[in-house]
């Protein structure tokens, strides 16, 4: 493929991330869809959009499954084929991938992909239980292993193997909170300092409260078009030039490595090869920092630094907004928030803004090549996408 556009992004929308008391998931999604429609005046949604794929992790939150049709209805698109994709926290990364399949198959020239989750009306204990459903039941959940617990198991192993420290992880939180303070749609638009992160209460040692992403309500969507049609709709399409998705064992304990995600490495290799690019070519990235440690691990899995050196990379400042490779300019899952089903395409939304020069105070200067890294479960799914701004 080598850099040939698979599909073009012609628009994108994102609800405000945060606590939305009294809003139902489908209502939240309609705000994301409305922004995407308004952003692209030449698009006539009812005429042009031929399919929807929507990521939604859990029917437990609202006692509501079958989100495809509900989201299509509340976006004024009733009648089109609308399918929910579920791959835990990578549900909308999988929706994006499904949208690419749909356009490339020739069955649909324009599709809407996105995701939604409404979480904050549940207690922390309930959310902990629901999120754990993305892990293995008979050997993990059944033994009291929580979702933060799985990543804590990896963090402990990484600390032991490479001398990674809790301070290294805390620096990810400090960086991402700073970026979120510049993002009006972020859930927590405030800075935190290293001391506060280090002093926060333990959740699953070595991970503390400020190492964890936020329980958030939110929705996101992206409009994909066949590349030949993109310029009819916008002067500033963003091309998706690499797409990789991979699976791994649902149980962490069955995997060969406890310090890296094979699914992410496989997905990244596929995407880089398709794009004809190397890790050094990436100018801005949104990675799956569901826990601060996972951002560090992603640096290694994506080839941003050698194996075991992610602690050094965060300390170098190179992944800060002004650095060589800004990571999680949106604030990430850590501070922008992590409405799990919405996260994958919310990452794409940020890259879309960056590559079209619309990221305002957090704009990365002259960014042309971006990457998203979306992980489901403890790494049983990963989706990596590579983007090129064509304006």
């Amino acid at each position: 493929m080598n850099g040939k556009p698979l599909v073009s992004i012609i628009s994108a929308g994102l609800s405000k991330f945060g606590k939305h008391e009294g809003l139902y998931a489908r209502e939240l999604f309609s705000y994301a869809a409305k922004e995407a429609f308004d952003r692209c005046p030449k698009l006539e949604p009812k005429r042009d959009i031929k399919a929807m794929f929507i990521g939604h992790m859990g029917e437990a939150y609202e006692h509501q499954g079958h989100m495809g049709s509900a989201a299509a209805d509340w976006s004024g698109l009733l009648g089109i084929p609308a399918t929910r994709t579920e791959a835990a926290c990578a549900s909308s990364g999988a929706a994006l991938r499904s949208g690419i399949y749909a356009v490339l198959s020739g069955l649909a020239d324009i599709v809407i992909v996105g995701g939604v989750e409404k979480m904050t009306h549940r207690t922390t204990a309930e959310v902990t239980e629901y999120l754990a459903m993305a892990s293995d039941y008979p050997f993990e959940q059944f033994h009291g292993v929580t979702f933060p617990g799985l990543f804590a198991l990896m963090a402990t192993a990484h600390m032991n193997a490479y001398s990674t420290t809790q301070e290294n992880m805390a620096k990810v939180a400090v960086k991402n909170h700073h970026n979120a303070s510049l993002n009006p749609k972020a859930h927590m638009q405030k800075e935190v300092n290293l001391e506060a992160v280090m002093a926060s209460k333990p959740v699953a040692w070595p991970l503390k409260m400020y190492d964890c992403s936020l329980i958030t309500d939110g929705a996101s969507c992206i409009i994909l078009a066949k590349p030949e049609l993109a310029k009819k709709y916008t002067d500033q399409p963003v091309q998706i030039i690499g797409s990789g998705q991979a699976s791994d064992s649902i149980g962490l304990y069955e995997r060969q490595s406890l310090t890296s995600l094979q699914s992410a490495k496989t997905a990244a290799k596929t995407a880089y090869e398709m794009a004809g690019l190397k890790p050094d070519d990436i100018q801005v990235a949104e990675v799956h920092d569901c826990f601060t440690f996972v951002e560090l691990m992603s640096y290694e899995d994506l080839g941003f630094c050698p194996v075991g050196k992610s602690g050094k990379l965060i300390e170098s400042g190179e992944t800060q907004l002004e650095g060589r490779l800004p990571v999680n300019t949106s604030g990430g899952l850590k501070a922008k928030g992590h409405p799990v089903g919405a996260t994958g395409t919310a990452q794409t939304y940020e890259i879309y803004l960056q590559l079209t020069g619309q990221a305002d105070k957090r704009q990365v200067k002259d960014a042309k090549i971006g990457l998203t890294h979306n992980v489901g479960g403890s790494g049983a799914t990963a989706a990596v996408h590579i983007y090129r701004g064509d304006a």
Partner: protein
Amino acid sequence: MSTQTPFTIEQFYKFMSHGRLMAGKCAKCGKIHLPPRPICDNCYSMEFTWTEISGKGKLLTYTIIHVAPPQFQALAPYAVGIVQLESGLKLPGMISNVPHEQLKIGMELTIDFKACAAGLTWPQWQRYCFRPA
């Protein structure tokens, strides 16, 4: 394929409740499955034999769970880890009888078949755990 004992996770826990750690060995390619599976993911064979494996091993990694789901809240904080058994196979579980500050990667642990039970309504399996060897 044996008609008495299906190669399933359910059967694995039945053996557990009798104090036996059992894995399924593929009769065709020899791959050992822990937990057992009805179909070998390597060669797709459905012929297996049961093989008893040692419950002794070393702690590969661990965490201490402070924020627990509702059914485990009474136990928190509690330690869970992944143990690499002498056979090389890995198994996660709670770690008991070790003060949390004394947990250490590489420490020797052994499986304990009579583990504490959390208030789960399903499934009614006996939960094992690990304790110092």
